[in-house]
């Protein structure tokens, strides 16, 4: 009886500690992400998420955040090789997609990466990368039309596209308004799931209204 109790306790402790190892790891990574000051810090955070992902193997979120942080380094470092960043981030998204099928968050990330690579040489990349970005958002909408980040990233892209190409501030305004509306009701599945973007949408809407 005692032995059984001991065994059960060991088992519970084991499970609890295994779970908390992932959660604690993620928590630490999120903290590190909040404290990021430089592109190099962001790169280190990305690597941290990637280490968690590679260890866990069946969790898509660390891959998602690893890709997202990599993507952010592309903007934070003005001299970043956006193609190298893009290839790395895409490889991570691909790993996440193997675990988590048809998730709008991953499609949104694909759109963001495509837009980042497009900005390297917009005139000549518009066709290929623009198409990739659009295709990714189409899939995101199919997976979850109520994800506010779809309209946020779409607006962010379109507000910088010239009016004659079907973009502009008016288009941006509509998209950010829609995004903010969806944020009101949006609830992430867990605390760890993506929930970013509300502040950004407000800020960008203000920019469009200027």
């Amino acid at each position, binding site marked *: 009886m005692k032995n059984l109790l*001991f065994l059960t306790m060991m088992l519970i402790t084991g499970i609890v500690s295994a779970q908390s190892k992932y959660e604690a790891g993620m928590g630490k990574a999120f903290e590190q992400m909040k404290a990021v000051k430089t592109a190099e810090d962001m790169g280190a955070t990305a690597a941290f998420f990637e*280490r968690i992902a590679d260890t866990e193997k069946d969790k898509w979120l660390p891959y998602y955040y690893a890709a997202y942080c990599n993507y952010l380094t592309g903007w934070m470092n003005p001299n970043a*090789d956006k193609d190298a960043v893009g290839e*790395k981030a895409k490889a991570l998204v691909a790993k996440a997609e193997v675990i988590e099928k048809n998730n709008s968050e991953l499609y949104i990330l694909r759109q963001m990466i495509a837009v980042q690579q497009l900005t390297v040489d917009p005139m*000549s990349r518009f066709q290929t990368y623009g*198409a990739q970005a659009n295709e990714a958002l189409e899939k995101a909408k199919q997976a979850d039309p109520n994800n506010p980040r779809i309209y946020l990233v779409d607006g962010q892209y379109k507000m910088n596209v010239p009016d004659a190409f079907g973009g502009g501030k008016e288009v941006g305004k509509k998209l950010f308004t829609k995004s903010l509306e969806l944020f009101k009701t949006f609830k992430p599945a867990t605390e760890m799931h993506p929930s970013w973007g509300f502040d950004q949408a407000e800020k960008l809407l203000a920019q469009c209204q200027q």
Partner: protein
Amino acid sequence: MKKLVILPASLILVLVSQAQTKISGTVRDMKSHIVAGASIQIKGSYDGGVSDSTSHFNFKSFEKGTQTIVVSNIGFKSVEQVIQLKGEPIEINFALKEEVSELKAVVVTAGSFEAGDKKRAATVLNTLDVLTTGGANADITAVLKTLPGAQQVGDQEGLFVRGGAGYEAKQFIDGTLVNNPYYSSVPDIAQRGRFSPNLFKGTVFSTGGYSALYGQALSSAVILESIDLPDQSQVNASISTVFAGLGLQELAKNKKSSWGFNYGYTNVWPYFQIVKQGVDYFTIPEFHSADANFRIKTKSGGIIKYYTTFSHNQLGLRRPNIDSLILKDAFGLTNYNWYNNFSWRENVGNGWKMNLGLSYSTDHNDIHQNIQNQQNQYVITGFPYIDTLNFALENKSDLSQIKLVLDKRISGISVIRFGSEYMYANYKSNYNGLHVLLKDNFLASFAEADLYITNALALKTGFRFEQSSLLNKINFAPRLSLAYKLGNGGQMSWAYGDFYQKPENSQLIFSTQLGYTKATHYIMNYMKVTTLQTFRIEAFYKKYNDLVKTFPVYNNAGTGDAKGIELFWRDKKTIKGMDYWISYSYLDTKRDYLNYPKSLQPNFAANHTASFVLKKFYSKLNTGFNFTYTYATGRPYYNIKYNSGLVKYEIADQGKTIDYHNLGFSMNWLTNIFKSYAVVVASVTNVLGSNQVFGYNYSYNGNYKQAITPVSTRFFFIGIFLSWGVDRRQDAINNNL
């Protein structure tokens, strides 16, 4: 109960014993270059770090005992090492081995320029560039002429590459040879290409040393790859000063197949009313062209494509006869052309890929020239040298072709490739009642290997074996090229190859006792490419053998050579939003062929040629402005006359034309018309009105010469291209221009 006490105690023990181990070191590649951004991780744990820009990393780990440390980075093979963690600092230096990958591997660039949307080292232009080069009027050949290696020949169509004549450059669509890529020749007036740039997603302009997959071109191969499925269904319409068109592309709902067609009608009558031409057109140039296509994606990731185009055109023009003040030469032409291309690209399993190409084309010309008097009536003068200018020529040339190429990855990204092609050519001509028929069964086999020894060293080697039933001869053409990446991001390439080509039909109708003409290329190239800048310098030597001589009888005794240096610089970086490129070619060439009495610099070759192309798009105006300036030094011209006394040809007169200048301009304004995406294009060639002379025609007695000039100083164009059903404007430009 005792045991329950032990448990917390052991937990404390664990915590206490979790002393950290500091792990540090460096990550470099096999050549001791710094590898930044590599991930260092203790396997099965979250502990790890990243190498910084000085190659260093350091982190702390709570793990204990025997652990495996993994170092990985994109483009490198991961390295694992077993370590003992005991709390004492550990220092390890890692050396990573590069993986041979398509992204990093050196690409053979000797002799070739790529235009397309693929990101490759050899890519210097993209599809959009073809459409937005000032003064090029969306003609692929006109754009390729802004690259080094090509001459600024304005009186004949074709690409005159590195001392080669226009017919030495051939075009290939999806692997198969195109028999008549340009509209039929008119004396002294260059014609446009038949194919619109929007049909192609990639173009390779090879100025020498090209792959064993292509033959029958002594100087140059233009390798065009057609587009796959369109992004979206759409309807297009266009109207301009010279043509109108309508088209449809339908993409299936499942995005697995598409079909479409286009029709265009060109009539320059309204334009000629406003802009007077230097010649008298008695039949206003008129073109009908229609095309249709379908494309189907196959289950295993392949694609089947079919494209067909039919065109009919006619024109007639009168020019003063050079031997008489009162007579005129009236030239008339009617042409029918039907071109079909079917291609099938498929993964056939086990790493094998198949490319099958079938094509059939038929081209029919009805050409006649009359000597006319001031009343535009046909006259017979009694002077043989004038009366022989009267002719009627009817010709029909058919080409059927099948080409199969198989390729397989052998190891890493190295590929072997081999295949065969068979062509049946049938040429019928009727010149003033004299009938000639030429039939050729042409068979070629080829094999080639792309070997990547490391990321820095690549080798492409192959050979080609050809047999023509008409010549009743075989040839064997080896090809070899090599590329080596230098440390600073630049790379060197070398290429060597033998190239054979059948004599032209216009020569074979006089004698089929001819052999292949031959050229041997030697090329050395340095290229450095960054995302927004390209620098390229290339030196070449080309030796011609067995060129066709027409005197005293048709024979293969002609020879020649060409050597030169070419520079290319493209920059999208220095001035934000502005894109420009500069090309310069130096060419030193001589050849003894046709009726040349000795080795001469041919009349299509200039020693120095330079182009400057500038593009700027103003987002606020939604308008792009494009300029192209080309310069070439004068070209030689000769009056080669037969001396019946000495029974040989001699140079009665020679000289050099004035330098060639041309400034082309175009602008495209993007807007919305009738709910469509619209592009308004305006362009003009030779903005400055420079006097352009391409050569001289001589009178029969040689006392009088007349400059060959463009039929009008400038060509103006205004057009509106509309497209519905597309949510992206760029497509509108691409599909319509």
